[in-house]
């Protein structure tokens, strides 16, 4: 890649610049700043769309009473039961059980707080079923 070909396709970096290696006019390698690259942006946006549609699908199930609100928070944070069980210090089967509305309702306050802390929210927020799915506000 020549230095003057280094892509500057701003999309995802929030003004951040990454550096990459490129060849200058004399054929030597130099570091050049890049604002992003279209193909990488496309692939990344695609990945976010997948996450977004998954979160929406989970929220529908939560609202329909098929899953507990914990499932919604889990999906928002791109987690699965295995990953969440690691953070919660529980067995995977326990987390899977808590994804069902019935067992979730019977959870003790201490356990709810434990889950809520992982997601950096309060226990009340964890139990609330939101109107629409939001993943933009995770980035606090």
């Amino acid at each position, binding site marked *: 890649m020549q230095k003057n070909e280094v892509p500057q396709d701003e999309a995802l970096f929030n003004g951040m610049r990454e550096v990459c290696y490129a060849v200058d006019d004399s054929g030597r*390698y130099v570091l050049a700043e890049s604002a992003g690259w279209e193909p990488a942006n496309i692939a990344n946006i695609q990945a976010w769309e997948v996450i977004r549609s998954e979160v929406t699908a989970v929220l529908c199930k939560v609202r329909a009473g098929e899953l507990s609100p914990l499932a919604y928070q889990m999906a928002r944070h791109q987690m699965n039961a295995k990953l969440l069980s*690691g953070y919660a210090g529980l067995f995977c089967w326990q987390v899977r059980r808590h994804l069902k509305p019935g067992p979730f309702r019977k959870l003790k306050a201490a356990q709810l707080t434990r889950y809520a802390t992982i997601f950096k929210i309060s226990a009340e927020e964890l139990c609330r079923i939101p109107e629409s799915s939001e993943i933009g506000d995770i980035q606090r």
Partner: protein
Amino acid sequence: MNPVFPHRQTAHCETGVIANLLTYHGLPLSEAMAFGIGGGLFFGYLPFIRINGLPLTTFRTAPGSIFNRVTKRLGIGVARSTFRDSDRAMAALDRYLAQGVPVGMQAGVYWLPYFPPALRFHFNAHNLVVYGKRGDDYLISDPVLGEPVVCAAADLARARFAQGALAPKGKMYCITSVPKQLDLAPAIRQGIREVCRYMLSVPFPLIGTRGIRYLANQVERWPAKLGDQRAILYLGNQIRMQEEIGTGGAGFRFIFAAFLQEAADILGDGQFLELSQRMTAIGDLWRDFAVAGARHCKGRAGQGEDFADLSHILRRCAAQEDALLRELSSLVRKP
């Protein structure tokens, strides 16, 4: 008292941490040199490891291995530690910082608040340097960022104990002793020999240039095997693995080319320069693959751009890398 650290922005986190830490300890080393000596160039298509249900492709050796090899080959003393408990891990970090020692560590990207939101996935093999503490905040030199940043203790503790694949477990490392002078030439040869070995002669079809060919065969079959929609997902994931996660396939080829250029000067052998140029061309070819693939993802594929053509590009990458590394291998074997 404000601690200073020679922060340089680099293309890749692990090699950047090595280069910056060594520079701090009075041994200026470039990122490309660290990458080459550590034998970082690699290819592996590992469909049995799934990330969000999609197969893993890697263009570099296992996280941490570049650091281990560079320090071993250059005779640098390192103290490493991992922890089970986050309070202890943070206390150990504070002890080093109180002595004025910058500490490198592994962390999960997802919990680092200073990262651009769009890049925050559950990726645990990120590396950064903590070089000071101000009140409850840590001063961090993250080599993929332009400037040093400040991070709250609670967030850093979370990132150090991220869960999932490649969990860092609070892993941290710092340099304890350095040689008076760096003897680069033998280390360069060792690094190149290792890259050649991994890329050319691992008896396993998913690794090295054989792995690239294997991936090419798979890409060709994706639409029939997975259906169009899944095939596009797989392709997008492949491009992300190549271009986003850890600088990517083409990026690593360019870093290696830069390394060969430096090696030519140190070893006094012009042949490395020519190989460096060819490596640059291979990197460009990988980028062509990403461009064509991304057009597919967008549904803008033109004529002569189906999955078979994509796999054709991959086969050319494989063939060219194979030829180049074979030459390189014979070059470093010379006494």
